[in-house]
Structure formats: C-alpha cells, structure tokens
C-alpha cells in the first residue's frame, strides 16, 4: 500500500511533463512492480521444480501401447471434442468434424474476434453478447477437457 502512495506522488511530479497519456513513468515505477512479480514467479517455478521434478517414464517402445495416454493438458479439449462428436453431418464424417472444429474453426474464430465484435465499447456492461459468448467458449473448453479425462 505504501508503494501505491509513493507511486501516486510520482504521477504528480511528472504531470508537468509533455506525455501522451497520464501515468507513471516506466522506470522505476512500472519496472519495480514487474521485478517484484518476476521474482515471485521465478521463485515459485524453482519451488515447483524442486518439489515436483519433471518426470521420465520408460523408454519409448513402438510395440507396447500404454494405457491411458494423455496429451498435454492444453490439448485435452481437442481429444474431448473428438470423443464427444459422433454425428455425421451429410457427407462429412464425424471424425473430420471432431478434428476440424476444435483446431481449424476454433483458432480461425479466435483470430477473427476483433473483426466480428464491432461494438466499440470496452465497458463490460455494454458488451453483454461478447461476454456471454466468451463465458460459453470458456465453459465449453472446460467441459471438453473434463470429458476427455472422464471418458478416456
């Protein structure tokens, strides 16, 4: 808290300077906070690494399929969706949809977000559709991640 007060003084001192936006100088105020956070993150990583070292299983054996095999946690939702989607749409096979939707369509949609959402407001209360869609997308990813673990 003391740091915040000090930073506020910093603003007053620099107010007379010709700046584009009101704020605190990058050095030292912004950098100080960054360094504090960096120390915390680096410390946590070393702690995690010491308590839970990276694993190493048996050497790869192409003739012995282990079970269950999990991919990295951030790809689980792709596997979940692939398992979840078992419906053919017309001539398109279920498997093709199961692969294309979470990989191609989803990333394509992410790239296009600023071009789809033309609402200029950044006020969260005036962006109800975007917020609801965002929450649905998040819940969807969480659900398919859960699905991939439970229905392995």
């Amino acid at each position, binding site marked *: 808290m003391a740091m915040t007060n000090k*930073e506020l003084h910093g603003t007053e001192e*620099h107010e007379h300077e010709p700046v584009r936006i009101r704020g605190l100088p*990058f050095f030292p105020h912004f950098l100080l906070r960054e360094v504090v*956070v960096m120390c915390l993150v680096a410390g946590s990583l070393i702690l995690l690494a010491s308590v*839970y070292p990276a*694993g190493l299983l048996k050497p790869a054996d*192409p003739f012995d399929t282990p079970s269950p095999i999990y991919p990295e946690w951030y790809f689980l939702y792709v596997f979940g969706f692939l398992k979840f989607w078992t419906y053919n749409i017309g001539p398109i096979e279920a498997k093709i949809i199961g692969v294309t939707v979470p*990989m191609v369509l989803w990333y394509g949609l992410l790239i296009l*977000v600023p071009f789809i959402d033309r609402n200029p407001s*950044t006020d969260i209360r005036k962006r109800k559709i975007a917020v609801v869609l965002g929450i649905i997308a998040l819940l969807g990813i969480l659900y398919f991640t859960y699905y991939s673990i439970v229905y392995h």
Partner: protein
Amino acid sequence: MTLSKTIYKWLDDRFKLRELLPPIVKHPAPEYAVSNPLYCLGGTAFLCFLILATTGIFLAMYYKPTPAEAYKSVERIMLEVPMGSLIRSVHHWAANTMIAAVMLHMIRVYFMGAYKRPRELNWVVGVFLFLTTTTFGFSGYLLPWDQLAYWATKIGTGIAGSIPVMGQYISLILIGGNDLGAETLTRFYAIHVLILPAAIITLLLLHFLMVRIQGISGRL
C-alpha cells in the same frame, strides 16, 4: 561512480543517450496497469519465455536427438549432470506456466475488450503467439523419447493428420516418413530449438512494438 559516469559520457558522446533514454525510461505506464495484478499476465508469460530460453540452452548442450541416445541423454541430465534435474524441471514448469499465463492473458484481454480498434492486429499477433507457444509444448513433449512422449505424439500427429486437405502434408512434414522415428525426432528438435524460437522472437517484437506505439488499453 566516476567510472560509470565516464562510461556513460563515452557512450553519450557517440550515441546521444541523453536524447535516446528518456522516452524509454520515462514512458508512462497507465496507473490502472501498474496497480491491477491482472496486467502482470503477459509479463509473466514473457518471463517464462526468458527462463525457457536460458534453461533450454543448457538442456541442448546435453541432449542428443536420436532414438538411441535421446532417452539416455535425458536420463543423464536427470541423474548425473550437476543441477541437471533442476534445470530440466524448471524448463518443464516454466513451459506449463507460460501456456497458462498466455491463456489467462488472452482471457483478460478478451473480457476487457482490449482487442478493439485500434488494437485488432495486436490481438491477431497474440493468437499466433498462443499457437506458437502450444506448438512449442507439442514439439517439446516428444524430445525425452519416453513412452508418454512417443504415444502422445503418435496420437497428436494422427489428429493433425486427419485435418481435411492440409492434414496429410502437416503429418508428412512433422513425421518425415510413415512412422515416428529418427526423422521425426530430429524434425521436432529443429522445430523446437530453431524454427519456433525464431518465430516467437519475431512475433514478440511485433507484439511489444504495437503495445509501445498504441499504449495499453483502458479500463474494464
């Protein structure tokens, strides 16, 4: 003191530091960005990247990307190399933390509407950074050449291979043959330590340059 002043003066005479430094050093960061911890997520991801680059260089000194040697070299890093286990574990945790931080950073930017005009392009670069980060994870997963690495990659390349039209090419480029083997391992290694670092550094420069030019987006 006098030594640092002498060095500063020497550099100042040549590079006009007096004119160059203030815009960088005194560049204002908005108050809300300094006081709100949600604005730390991007910086956390970047710090993880720096840690990954450093630990990755050390790992590359001992790692051998062939099916016969890969597993043994990782085992040697874990058991024999001084601090090897710590370096590899920090690499492992920094990788997972980086992906989590990038995801949370994206969620923050989405719900604050920070991608809106004039920052559309920076969001697009950000999505490519996210893709690059997950591809880093995917390619790094195979390198220890243990059971998990082998079979997760087998399934992963299988899924990428069934994407319509591009799939078979992606699969051929990644695997370098019909089945996972020596070709795949060297390819994944090259992707992980040469192609992706070059890509992510370029994208990060663009990302930061745009933030610098356009400033940090406003309130929630």
